[in-house]
């Protein structure tokens, strides 16, 4: 686990109740996990900056960083509690509140972390339509069916820092679609036998 001394220092020095009251702490924790799971902040940050906005900001930044790091390294509840109380001087109630929140959001944060990175475009859906060619400039006879398939993929765009949808379009004849379906089903079959095998 990589948690710099700077973050530890920020977390430790903010334990003074005069600097960050318990109510503010609770709201900051709620905001922190909302952001990490990809939702909007629940409380307006401006309302949380008391007379010491710099300290609140610093603490909030540290909170976000260490929370992500905890999940990234897959730390258990106990390890997190241990770290906060011994290395950052968190009081027991504050530690408990944090641990309770992180456990609730763990899966969400894992999903967000999983989505970061330059993986291949991820296939999520397929659209199709069936066409018949009635006539063309070179052939007078009807032909078909012709399948027009559009595979919808999601890709993480590093520049925009969000997911982008992209379509892969192609056509195929009955036989070719049969071939494609057969191959996909083969992969599905493989997944399910593997699944049964593990269970």
């Amino acid at each position, binding site marked *: 686990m990589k948690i710099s001394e700077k973050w530890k220092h920020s977390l430790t020095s903010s334990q003074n109740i005069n600097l960050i009251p318990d109510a503010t702490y609770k709201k900051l924790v709620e905001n922190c996990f909302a952001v990490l799971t990809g939702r909007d902040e629940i409380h307006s940050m401006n309302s949380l900056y008391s007379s010491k906005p710099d300290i609140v900001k610093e603490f909030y930044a540290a909170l976000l960083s260490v929370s992500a790091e905890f999940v990234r390294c897959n730390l258990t509840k106990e390890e997190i509690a241990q770290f906060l109380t011994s290395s950052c001087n968190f009081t027991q109630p504050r530690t408990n509140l944090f641990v309770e929140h992180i456990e609730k959001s763990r899966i969400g944060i894992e999903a967000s972390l999983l989505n970061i990175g330059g993986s291949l475009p991820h296939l999520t859906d397929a659209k199709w339509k069936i066409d018949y060619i009635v006539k063309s400039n070179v052939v007078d*006879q009807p032909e078909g069916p012709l399948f027009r398939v559009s595979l919808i993929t999601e890709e993480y765009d590093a520049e925009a820092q969000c997911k982008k949808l992209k379509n892969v379009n192609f056509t195929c004849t009955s036989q070719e679609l049969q071939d494609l379906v057969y191959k996909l089903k083969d992969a599905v079959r493989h997944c399910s036998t593997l699944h049964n095998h593990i269970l």
Partner: protein
Amino acid sequence: MLISLRSDHKEHLQLLTTQPLQVVVDFCKLALDFLQNGPNLKRYTTAAQKLEVDVDVVQNCVFGLINLLILSCKHKLSEADFRDSVLTLGFSQEHQAVLSKFYESKQNDIHRINHICINEPHYEDLKWRFEVQVSSRSLLQQVTPLIAMELVLKTQSDNGTEKESILLQTDPNNLLHIANELEHALSESRSRHSRKIQRALTH
């Protein structure tokens, strides 16, 4: 069904109707050569000298044969229809036998070329492999099943066929969904509604 040719097209083919069988066979060979390698003026000149006609006449005759072939393919003439069409043009029975053989041998090739008149990416192949992602920079411990796929698409263009490989991945849930969705498309194409439309179009 008989095909009707333009009068100049008929004129171009007239040369052959009066020639002996061997000449018709040779012209079919010239036409085959044209299909494979494009026009060959040298051979046309030799043929013109032998028949004692202009090079233009020979060339037009070869082009006429090709055009006849393309038109017949366009209308998907059956063997009997092709025979009748050729006989109406004034060819003898023997000539017709040679031309029918010529049509029969090249029919599939022409259909294949005509099939792809509008160039769009066409499915060619799909390769897949099953993998498990166990770690990444942003999440050190994980077990994420993934199916990586390579989709090969082929596009016909003037310079030949272009193949394009697209790398994709998906998870088992989405894979099942997509396989089901495409299978649905396939079964829909065999449904009563689709068959009814198919029948209506072909008759």
